[in-house]
């Protein structure tokens, strides 16, 4: 019997089969059957015709979109200045941004709750705002880090060349630095956008009682409706796949484009 290095992957393959592939098959089975075990696409059509489930998708998208934008607006300048500055305390500052990630997030949200309570008076008055603030607080480091890494890896010579050729600082940024940092932005966006669509614990803890995709799936399962819940999980999975395919292509092509420059 010949032993190849591939055999080392067996434990992981077993893991994958038991915990990823098998549950996925169950998911497919439940999504396309009804309570009597017959094949049906009702779960699918129902999701896209009911204004409430559709509204949940819409609300999750909106929430994730706003969160991602706020994160991007906050994170880009920070990452940019950190990456381009020459100060000696840079590692310390970076550490300060990363440190919150070491603390359990539900603890952080609990603390945030008290702060927001002081600022807003009655927390329940602004459920959408609360959710955006909570998610931004939670996901900001995931946006800063990839952008920071991308910008700090940029060849400084490119910027100097732009300046030499007569571009001013703003032009240099817009025509050189910004396009070249797109891969960082994209990986930051995908690390914030997708979890923000389903992280319902933040909403729960900050008194937003509207369902998003995560809580909607949960509500189906606690109502013993595994079929509807599985279908929504599948739809969410499909969305994630589409998103990953789009951004994956993009990162690749941008990477190649960068090399050509």
């Amino acid at each position, binding site marked *: 019997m010949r032993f190849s290095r591939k055999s080392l992957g067996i434990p992981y393959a077993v893991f994958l089969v038991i915990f990823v592939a098998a549950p996925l098959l169950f998911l497919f089975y439940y999504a396309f059957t009804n309570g009597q075990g017959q094949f049906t696409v009702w779960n699918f059509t129902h999701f896209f015709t009911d204004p*409430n489930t559709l509204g949940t998708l819409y609300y999750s998208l909106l929430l994730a*979109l706003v969160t991602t934008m706020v994160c991007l607006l906050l994170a880009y300048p920070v990452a940019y200045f950190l990456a381009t500055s020459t100060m000696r305390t840079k590692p310390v500052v970076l550490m300060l941004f990363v440190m919150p990630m070491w603390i359990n997030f539900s603890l952080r949200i609990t603390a945030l709750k008290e702060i927001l309570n002081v600022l807003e008076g*009655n927390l329940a008055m602004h459920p959408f705002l609360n959710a955006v603030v909570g998610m931004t607080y939670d996901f900001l480091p995931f946006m800063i880090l990839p952008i920071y890494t991308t910008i700090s890896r940029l060849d400084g010579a490119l910027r100097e060349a732009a300046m030499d050729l007569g571009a001013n600082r703003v032009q240099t940024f817009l025509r050189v630095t910004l396009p070249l940092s797109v891969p960082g932005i994209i990986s930051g966006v995908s690390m914030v956008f997708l979890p923000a669509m389903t992280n319902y614990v933040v909403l729960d803890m900050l008194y937003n009682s509207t369902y998003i995709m995560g809580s909607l799936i949960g509500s189906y399962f606690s109502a013993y409706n595994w079929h509807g819940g599985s279908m929504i999980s599948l739809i969410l999975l499909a969305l994630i796949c589409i998103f990953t395919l*789009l951004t994956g292509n993009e990162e690749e092509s941008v990477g190649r484009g960068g090399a050509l420059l």
Partner: protein
Amino acid sequence: MHNRIRKKTLLTSLSVLLFLMLFVPESLAERMSEILPAGWADQLCLQAQASDTITLRVCNWEEYIDLGDWDEEETIELPSGDIIGENSMVEDFEEWYYDTYGKRVKVEYSTFGTNEDLYNMLTLGDVYDLVCPSEYLIMKLMAEDALVPLSDDFFDTAQENNYYSRGAAPFIRQMFENSEIGGEPWAKYAAGYMWGVTGLVYNPEIVTREQASSWKILADPEFARKVTIKDNVRDAYFAAVGAIKSDLLTSEEFRSDPDYAKNLEREMNDTSPEMIEKVQEWLKGVKDNVFSFETDAGKADMITGKVAVNYQWSGDAVYTLDQADEDDYTLCFAVPEESTDIYFDGWVMLRSGIGNDADRQHAAEAFINFMSRPDNAIRNMYYIGYTSVISGGEDPRMFEYAQYCYEAEDDEEETVEYDLSYFFSGDPENADGEYVIETPADQLERQLYGQYPPADVIGRSSIMTYFNDEQNERINQMWINVRCFDIRRAPWWSWILILGTLVLVGRYLIIRRLRNKGR
């Protein structure tokens, strides 16, 4: 070189084997135990242990049993003797069972978070012998024929160790005998553990008792964003029905009807499509009015003063009031005039676990009885704050404990007489003041009112039956309609934002692609 490769192969296969061992069903594990060395087999499956040990798989609510380890000063000093929890209840049971019946029993104790979780766990094939769900899940399990009936022995009051049959409160026992599913009374399958009613915890500085005595307060704009409601469809539904039918339920005519109890139960369990429609509208209003739909946070929000009213189960209400007292912050508890949901958690034995194993069933029934022994019931009550269904029968300790908790000190200025004979006496009409507690006047609105609600509250209580599949589907759809964002209500700016982003991203992608092709 060869050696190293062989080592790797060995390691890989070992890790796969180890991994498999965690997941193989027990029958397979047993077969494996024949091949593997003896030492390993014991680790692999518990059944391989000495065969005279009975394994009892119990699944109970989280934090719903005394774990022992009390401080010395926590000792409950009753006239009939001191009570203190030194070891956990489960350990005490194992020891007691061995001393009493001469057999070893090993309790595998696990917990669940909600009735729905437990039901899903059972559907997925988790096996338990004895579980403690709420009344509506007991009804569902009964309807599905998933339960083993309690044995005749269990009901034999002549046996000294049958603490449940000898000590369960008569009014609870009556309810268990009168409520039927498919022609069979609950009592045949279920033994009660804890019980209570639903009501409202409120802050008396902001809310009057009268306001807190109606379910309508949940939708009252005067308390906008100052009330919380339970985040589960059954409790929300009950409150909604109570509020919508408030005028009918509180009318003199309805109350004086000789069939009041039956009518009330029918009205409160109204699941007609029209009613579901009305409930949906009402709850949509509530969603815009309440502070939150909460599962657990409501207690803390109440104590920290974030909200003024909190929809609560009586056991948790007692806990909330106790916690507030420690902060010198006074809260009260009221039960709405319309009606209140009387609920139980009870022990039932599962067919899938017990099967025909008489030894195991004996151990399971002994577990119920041990939990029902008055001193143990008191320990559990003290530890978790809920009210035990045990009134003690001939054992005076349960009533002594109520006195211990709520009787007024000698120097108390204002006291009232609080009659508990409906619970402790088998014959309330002729109890003759035997079960009256002299209690501080404010207890009429506080812990005692939650721990042992007065007879008039019990009078207007109603059982909420389980929803069958069809009702369940309709009511859950209603709940989703309430909780979800209706896309037709989306503001214009959100459409601009989403469509704008889509257009921008799409444009960017197309330009990129074209440019790449150009190269």
